[in-house]
């Protein structure tokens, strides 16, 4: 159990109204991180157009922090270039939410990792098979 009043209003707002939930028909890149045995699982799917993230959707199994971080990261990077998106890290995600409880800082804050995986996946597909 987390300590009470651990979450900021911003976390709660994203938890209750998550942006960009779902899956993308025929995504250009998919990133999946986490493991149900350890806690949270996040999946990010992206559509890329002109080197920018044209669309992004997530699916998350996890606690409030996991869902809120997933949601806000999609908002943060939509329309950004892939380079800009790769530069977003979990620390920035946490601070965009007004902070996370200490216990949640690591385990449930994997959204940027999932995003990066999705971008890497896109890039690896874009490359000719080596």
């Amino acid at each position, binding site marked *: *159990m*987390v*300590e009470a009043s651990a*979450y900021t209003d911003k976390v*709660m707002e994203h*938890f*209750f109204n*998550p942006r960009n*939930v779902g*899956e993308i028909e025929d*995504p250009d*890149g*998919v*990133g*999946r*991180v*986490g*493991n*149900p*045995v*350890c*806690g*949270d*699982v*996040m*999946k990010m799917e992206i559509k890329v157009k002109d080197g920018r993230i044209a669309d992004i959707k997530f*699916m*998350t*199994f*996890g*606690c*409030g922090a*996991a*869902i809120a971080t997933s949601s806000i990261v999609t908002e943060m990077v939509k329309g950004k270039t892939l380079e800009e998106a790769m530069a977003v890290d979990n620390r920035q995600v946490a601070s965009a939410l007004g902070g996370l*409880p*200490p*216990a949640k800082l690591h*385990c*449930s804050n*994997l959204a940027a*990792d999932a995003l990066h*995986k*999705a971008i890497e*996946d896109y890039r690896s597909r874009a490359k000719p098979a080596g």
Partner: protein
Amino acid sequence: MREVYLDHAATTPVHPEVAEVVHAHLVDAYGNPSSLHRFGRRARSAVEQARERVARALAAEPEEIVFTSGGTEADNLAIRGVARRAGSGHIITSQIEHHAVLHTCEALETEGFAVTYLPVDAQGRVKPEDVAAAIREDTILVSIMAANNEVGTIEPLAAIGAICRRRGVLLHSDAVQAFGQLPLDVGALNVDLMSISAHKVYGPKGIGALYVRRGIRLTPLMYGGGHERRRRPGTENVPGIVGLGMATEIALRELPDRPQAMAAVRDQLIRGIGETIPDVVLNGDPVDRLPNNVNFCFRYVEGESILLALDSKGIAASSGSACTSGALEPSHVLVAMGLPHDLAQGSVRFSVGRGTTAGDIDYVLGVLGPAIDRLRKMSPLYAERAGGGPRAGGTSLEG
């Protein structure tokens, strides 16, 4: 907003009669019970009356009751007290005990004691024959809870007590959850030490008691004045003790009816969840179960997110034990019962109370289904449930 408190296993609302006597004793019986004068005597007699009430509820003698600051201290005093007194030896407990028992045992291991942590079956029950088999020449204590706080399973305490008595080994039982819900008779159960806590039975927080069978000597946890027959020093928490006494009296008075009434709403909730939400698993023993406990795993979703969703509708429940903070690990109880970790992550405990109504349960059922539904729609595990693996791309990373 409607508020429905279904976390009575974490703590209970204080009964108004209890709050009243606590207040009265704060104001009127403020003397120190150790003092000779009339202010002291008033406080002393309030303490001793409470001691008699608690003793009666356990079929014990007043001088066998030691007041403590709660269930945790009672568990520590029992186990550490017996161990330190013995100096060395072997302790038997179970894997599903409260952390107050488990972590005390672990600390004693670092101090040279040997500890066996017995496994439990899929319902969370300790097998008496496992206790019998684990007893060694040097076993000084067995500690098995009367009923589990997370899944509500009632342990076969009488059978374990009979074994311990026959083998001449002391038996402690953490009855913090069972007290007030099950009749407890330390004589019939052959229990030598028993922990209780007021705040689980509509009494105040910060007060509990340890039953210590006459003749058992404990090394105290603390040193100071000669209070509680030299077993627990410190100025007595008079209002707390009086509150525990009153809460005990009320529990005893309601014991013929309260459990059945709670079991009725409990069963309404169990039935309702089973009928309206797919992919759920009831944890704990379906029959030998505390009258207030409902514990379900909701597949493909995580427990805390369910709690947040419920909380936003005024419903209070718990995932795992409220006493373990900051932990992202699944409940040690569910793991000991053999649940896979991912399933255990999705467990939620609803614990009803003496004030819970059928209308409360209807309200909860109306909120819960849609909440689970919404979370499952977000869950990659739910989306992947048919295929059994990731739909496309990506690899798994240890989180």
